[in-house]
């Protein structure tokens, strides 16, 4: 299998072979995934929520970093495609015995794996694995370090498209800890590729990457200004370790300036939607009345996440 050295996600026909990052993926492939996911939403609403596409295939969930929600939605997606799913929480198995990541992967490949879903605390780990697996094995990045979380970015795009239909006239705000967020990076790349004309990032200086404006986004430090007239508000999770760390005075302080409350949300358009990748810190980045309010699409995001992962897996396994 020849993979494009400049973009090792694509095969020689320009088709998706691995999903490692949304950066550098052509719009055509993003639209293909979003369109396919739409058809899978129908499948998940039926009596029998399964299709036979991946029958006989083995999908290995390799989670080098704990995650319940992402692992579960990948597992549900693979099972709805009729694949066999093997879940491995690696931090509690061979890694503690000193086995390297590539040795783990080589051993699992020898068990006839067809696909690896990889979550790792180190940026680039899924790329490393993708470079070393046999040519007929597909790798999906389920979140690596601060780098990328492509299926989360895709399910966010699916959710926005579901409610707003079209990206070409949207004003979107991404709020919170942009610096440490692989989700934010994936969102910015996807929104840009899909033609969103105005992306704003909102957060304290200490939680914004330097030169973030080079990604083509507008930077705001004052949330009330940043939310003015936006169509979509994408909240990010504030990681626990940041709440105690040197970058922020306190969680309460963060809530005061950057927590999404009803009165701040009122500055956005009246029909603006609110997204959050979960799990939420209620009372830190988002108020409960907003999280459970009429503009929240946080639970539909979870449902759409299954359809997106079904779409990605079935497109990869077919290429």
């Amino acid at each position, binding site marked *: 299998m020849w993979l494009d050295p400049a973009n090792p996600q694509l095969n020689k026909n320009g088709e998706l072979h691995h999903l490692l990052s949304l950066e550098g993926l052509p719009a055509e492939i993003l639209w293909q995934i979003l*369109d396919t996911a*739409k058809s899978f939403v129908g499948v998940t609403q039926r*009596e029998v929520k399964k299709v036979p*596409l991946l029958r006989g295939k083995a999908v290995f969930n390799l989670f080098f970093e704990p995650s319940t929600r992402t692992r579960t939605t990948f597992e549900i997606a693979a099972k709805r495609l009729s694949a066999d799913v093997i879940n491995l929480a690696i931090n509690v198995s061979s890694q503690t015995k000193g086995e390297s990541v590539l040795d783990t992967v080589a051993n699992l490949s020898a068990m006839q794996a067809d696909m690896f879903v990889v979550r790792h605390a180190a940026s680039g780990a899924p790329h490393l694995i993708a470079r070393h697996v046999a040519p007929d094995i597909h790798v999906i990045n389920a979140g690596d370090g601060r780098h990328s979380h492509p299926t989360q970015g895709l399910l966010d795009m699916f959710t926005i498209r579901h409610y707003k239909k079209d990206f070409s006239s949207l004003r979107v705000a991404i709020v919170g800890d942009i610096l440490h967020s692989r989700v934010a990076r994936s969102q910015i790349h996807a929104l840009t590729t899909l033609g969103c004309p105005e992306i704003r990032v909102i957060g304290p200086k200490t939680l914004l990457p330097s030169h973030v404006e080079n990604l083509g986004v507008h930077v705001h430090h004052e949330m009330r200004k940043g939310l003015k007239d936006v169509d979509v508000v994408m909240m990010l999770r504030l990681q626990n370790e940041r709440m105690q760390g040197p970058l922020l005075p306190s969680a309460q302080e963060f809530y005061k300036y950057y927590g999404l409350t009803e009165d701040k949300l009122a500055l956005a358009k009246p029909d603006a939607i609110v997204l959050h990748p979960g799990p939420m810190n209620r009372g830190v980045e988002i108020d409960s009345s907003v999280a459970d309010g009429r503009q929240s699409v946080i639970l539909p995001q979870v449902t759409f996440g299954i359809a997106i992962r079904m779409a990605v897996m079935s497109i990869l396994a077919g290429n």
Partner: protein
Amino acid sequence: MPGTPLPDAEQLLKALTDQMRPEVGPETGLIGIHTGGVWLAERLHRDLNLKVPLGTLDVSFYRDDYEKIGLHRDVKTSDIPFEVEGRHLILVDDVLYTGRTIRAAMNELFDYGRPASIRLAALVDRGGRELPVAARFLGAAVTVAPGRSIELKRDSDGRLSLALSGDEHVA
């Protein structure tokens, strides 16, 4: 000019409608297979004055050539807005050929429930069956050279017509 001209799709559809009229009841479920089958089913549904809403199927998730050619690029959404369990169904497709699309469609339908029966309506049958599938209602049988395919087209006024495509070049 190549072979005999293709029959007129509008006339075939009329013949198909007449065949089906005495065979459908108030509870019959009509299901078109994307894309040509859906166009036909929309017309049949209207002209037969059926009360049960029209169903549509995209069989991409059930095709037996997924391993070979991967997932179809332009998957449409299947939508069966009625109870399949215990219902008499009629599947509608434009061109009946190997029978593999019909096999995939039947597999998908059974994931919605156990129908009382499934019959098949096709606009044209070009032979070449690879599975034991036959149309109960048929517009016409046609002969087409191997390597060529027949396609149903719909113009901006909704008029249906048949066209040949494929390898053979006309000098």
